[in-house]
């Protein structure tokens, strides 16, 4: 334990990156307890923004939810001033959880252990028996409540997405996201009133970074996911592309249906498991409605380190990735509709929700493929992944036959970790 804790402070104790560049990824990154500990401090509690919740989940004064930033449990609240606040879900006294429920409404928060009480902004406002009983016991006179409290997070909101950061030095959220990413979030969410349609958690048997690589990997999408390919939701030949922001950490992969395009012969040539002639008995599953001004039918957007905004036709969702150990990751899905959906539009969203999640026609495979890698590399910590499709850069591209956004992830990761 001691070596893990100190590793978080001392870069020299981590193994060093094996060779320059972003095309070889050492497998010890997914296996090493020191790496995991360092990630908690340098990334999740470092100068990054992590997704906390949707503002729409906390509409009223006193509403709160508990969420996670890496290992840290975090409480998000709406106070009487209408603003959102976030603080560590850790009593300043002896460290117990302050809030136990996933969500609720509260005037204040009282730790069950010794009833230390916090206001909605995380300020300590009460200590049970602080002055003792009948002049005996109690805290020393020097004890000042203002000096004690759980760590507070900075909170920022964009289009109803609430992000938090433990860092005082992280740039403002919009600057952090940059001009390539912000309009792509606005495209899906700006000026709309989201409503939560459902939630679930997919427990992944792999390191969190293997899921983020998968999200950013446009190369695999039409190969592993036959459902997409056959129904022409996501052919590599469709009009589309990849946007990688200058930091590398955020990306957008998008595609637009081109009804005039000829069926692509490339797949047949490659003998890839994708030409099956598979047809739906009930094609209403994919009969969506025109929701956006452009023709983009798929937009997967990720924010470093652990957030995804998804638009697959009319299936809109946010995904929060929470590391739960070196080889365990929680993928928290929140499916979204909008307040002005007609009943027909809502039904279309429910049907298209079949595309995603643990039973998703197109995302089922993503649940297991990270585990295949985790198990595949178990005895090969010194070996390396090859991430060279599309070259060695981490730049935006009109082709999606590239691993540029995967390299972008590693670019931001190396910068954030000092590796």
């Amino acid at each position: 334990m001691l070596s893990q804790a100190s590793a978080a402070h001392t870069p020299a104790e981590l193994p060093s990156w094996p060779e320059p560049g972003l095309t070889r990824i050492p497998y010890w990154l997914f296996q090493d307890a020191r790496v995991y500990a360092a990630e908690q401090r340098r990334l999740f509690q470092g100068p990054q923004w992590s997704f906390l919740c949707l503002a729409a989940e906390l509409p009223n004064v006193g509403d709160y939810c508990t969420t996670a930033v890496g290992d840290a449990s975090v409480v998000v609240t709406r106070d009487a001033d209408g603003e959102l606040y976030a603080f560590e879900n850790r009593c300043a006294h002896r460290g117990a959880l302050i809030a136990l429920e996933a969500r609720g409404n509260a005037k204040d928060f009282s730790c069950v252990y010794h009833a230390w009480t916090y206001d909605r902004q995380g300020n300590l406002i009460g200590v049970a028996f602080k002055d003792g009983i009948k002049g005996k016991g109690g805290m020393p006179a020097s004890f000042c409540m203002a000096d004690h409290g759980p760590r507070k997070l900075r909170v920022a909101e964009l289009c109803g997405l609430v992000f938090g950061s433990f860092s005082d030095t992280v740039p403002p959220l919009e600057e952090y996201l940059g001009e390539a990413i912000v309009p792509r979030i606005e495209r899906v969410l700006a000026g709309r009133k989201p409503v939560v349609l459902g939630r679930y958690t997919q427990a992944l048997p792999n390191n969190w970074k293997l899921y983020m690589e998968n999200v950013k990997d446009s190369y695999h999408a039409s190969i592993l996911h036959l459902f997409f390919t056959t129904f022409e939701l996501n052919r590599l030949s469709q009009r589309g592309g990849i946007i990688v922001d200058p930091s590398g950490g955020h990306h957008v992969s998008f595609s637009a249906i081109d009804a005039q395009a000829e069926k692509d012969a490339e797949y047949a040539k490659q003998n890839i498991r994708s030409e099956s002639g598979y047809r739906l008995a009930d094609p209403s599953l994919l009969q969506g409605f025109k929701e956006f001004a452009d023709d983009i039918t798929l937009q997967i957007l990720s924010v470093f380190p652990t957030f995804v905004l998804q638009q697959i036709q009319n299936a809109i969702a946010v995904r929060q990735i929470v590391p739960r150990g070196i080889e365990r990751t929680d993928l928290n899905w929140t499916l979204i509709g909008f307040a002005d959906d007609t009943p027909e539009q809502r039904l279309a969203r429910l049907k298209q929700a079949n595309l995603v999640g643990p039973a998703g026609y197109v995302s089922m495979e993503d649940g297991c493929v990270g585990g295949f890698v985790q198990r595949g590399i178990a005895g090969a910590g010194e070996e390396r992944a090859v991430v060279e499709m599309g070259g060695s850069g981490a730049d935006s591209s009109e082709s999606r036959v590239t691993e540029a956004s995967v390299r972008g992830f590693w670019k931001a990761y190396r910068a954030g970790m000092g590796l």
Partner: protein
Amino acid sequence: MGEEIASLIGQVQAAYARAIDNGDLAAWPDFFEEQCTYKITTADNHSQGLEAGVVFANSRAMLLDRITSLREANVYERHTYRHLLGQPWIQSQEAGRVRSETSFLVVRIMRDGTTDIYATGRYLDLYSLQGAKPKLVERIVVCDSSRFDTLLALPL
């Protein structure tokens, strides 16, 4: 009459579980009416009135598509289920329809032999008694937990 119904529903549910657990997935849609609802959701979503879950189908054809997709399209590690069903509680019976609730426990057996409790919960069912056998007009599978390990491929 009540006991007869319970026994009838119990039998058809045993056949349903048997079909899935023994790998006869092609038979699974036949337990449903052509116009039907099948949904897998969580107790949290259900109690909060949230409509979306993990699986949603509003026709038997969509259930057929599930099975075809599992066979032809989706990639997942081979595994089987073992369903243990509680006794059906008959909630109401009128006009040839029966509402019932049945608890389930599903164990998942992976190809390497790993055997885990995969899901527990209850079936909220509406059966039609019009045909030779009771058929499902609606089955809401309410899982007790909101966590699904790795993926959910086979139906519950």
